[in-house]
């Protein structure tokens, strides 16, 4: 899933301050599943913004904001018609013409996708953090993949050192491992302790009887596969 967290209300209010009417569009994908931008959160956001004096004229939720429609399908439509086409109505869709901007509760992909088919400004309500999964035990979301373009999970016990080692090391733990934890756990800017990915990898490989995978020198990462902005053709 794409992990997001809502921006502070003050920041959202500030970005909306120049528009007389705003439509809120949530997303039915990852952010709905992880309860940061689904139907319920879109309603709550509308209530909070109205309380703060923002004129929320309409609110709705798209199915998947990262996959809406092709540009040519909506080429002849007005923005209000485009929104009606891609979002389920919750409230006020008859007043969509009054909206001067859209506040999207989707991730950065969704915001950009919606912005791509609308002429009016589309503003983010969320900060998009990473690709990860929810750990109910411990109450946190954990980054799992940075999309480096060259997956090495086959020989790291299904644990990604590129993502989960603070230094993205390819060849084993550094000297900063402290009781199984990464040295950054002790940094004053770290919000939570992190286990050393390479000790986790070692333990997993040992359990699977293939510590020998760690003995091979892995080559340097090829950052031509990871440099922005990436684009990939179909069929490759």
């Amino acid at each position, binding site marked *: 899933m794409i992990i997001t967290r809502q921006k502070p209300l003050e920041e959202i209010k500030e970005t909306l301050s120049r528009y007389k009417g705003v439509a809120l569009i949530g997303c039915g994908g990852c952010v709905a599943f992880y309860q940061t931008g689904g139907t319920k959160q879109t309603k709550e956001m509308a209530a909070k913004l109205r309380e703060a004096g923002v004129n929320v004229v309409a609110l709705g939720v798209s199915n998947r904001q990262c996959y809406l429609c092709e540009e040519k399908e909506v080429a002849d439509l007005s923005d209000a018609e485009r929104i009606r086409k891609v979002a389920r109505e919750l409230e006020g869709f008859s007043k969509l013409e009054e909206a001067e901007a859209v506040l999207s509760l989707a991730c950065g992909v969704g915001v950009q996708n919606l912005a791509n088919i609308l002429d009016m400004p589309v503003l983010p309500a969320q900060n998009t953090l990473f690709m990860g999964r929810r750990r109910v035990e411990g109450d946190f979301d954990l980054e799992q993949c940075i999309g480096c373009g060259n997956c090495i999970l086959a020989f790291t016990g299904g644990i990604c050192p590129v993502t989960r080692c603070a*230094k993205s090391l390819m060849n084993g733990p550094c000297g900063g491992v402290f009781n199984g934890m990464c040295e950054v756990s002790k*940094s004053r800017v770290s919000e939570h302790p992190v286990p050393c990915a390479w000790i986790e990898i070692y333990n997993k490989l040992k359990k699977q009887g293939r510590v020998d995978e760690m003995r091979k020198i892995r080559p340097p990462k090829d950052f031509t596969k990871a440099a922005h902005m990436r684009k990939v053709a179909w069929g490759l």
Partner: protein
Amino acid sequence: MGEVYSNFMRSLLSSEFTISGEIDPPKDANRAAVEEQVKHLKDHVVAANVTDNPIGDVIMNTLAPCVIMQELGLEAIYQATCRDRNRIALQSDIIGAAALGIKNVLALTGDHTKMGNHPQAKPVFDLDSVLLTQTLRRLREGENMAGEKLEHPPKVHIGVGLSPGVEPLEPEIIKLEKKIEAGAEFVQTQCIYDEKVLERLKEATAHLDIPILPGIAPLRSVGMAKFMQANVPGISIPEEMLAKLEKSKDLTETAIDIAAELIAAVKDYGFPGVHIMPVGMDRYVGEMIARSGVRR
């Protein structure tokens, strides 16, 4: 062993007990601070390391003190970490350092940027210590990472680090084996205070053919000892050492004594030398060595 370029490597290959020291670069442009440390170490160690922004604090770079100390007649071991430089900068710096007469490089991963005084900085870690080692050897053999031939390769000896007190030790040893395969020629370890760790190091590396210099650093106070134990990975300090510091009436004397005992222990365990990190006590390094009796 092929060609030998440095006095440090020559010493490691001889039967003499090899002692390396360490210079802490100042945080400003104070050349005299470097010269002062060189003066204290010069007659007692074969070569001295220059750290590369330890814990990620901004201090004088590695190269300047290396050049200054070599001008003053003390051979440098240039520490290169992967934290701040990508493969382009690392190769380029080593080539430049070699042109300025640097003969020894210690390839390290480097502490994370979050540990230092600029935690917001972008951590680089384009290469890791194994890959940096491999890169140094490739450069020395006359080829850069792009495969381009070098007519005048940087002739440097390659050292690596080791943290013998960590748990579990096996991944650390596996990594050392990879470093040796990649071209490492000597090892300098994280500081050791416990003879049990020396013993463990000896056993765990018995199968490896590479000179290992255990690292030692004087303990200047009980506070420092406790801080290191709590915050530096793989450090254990024996109770009797803490008791000695607690009872001490002259901490400098006690620090010198403890360091001397550790140096002697390193030799007793059959290591080919020792790496002394003076951590501010550079003026006493000569005394630590003299008291240890390793030169008698």
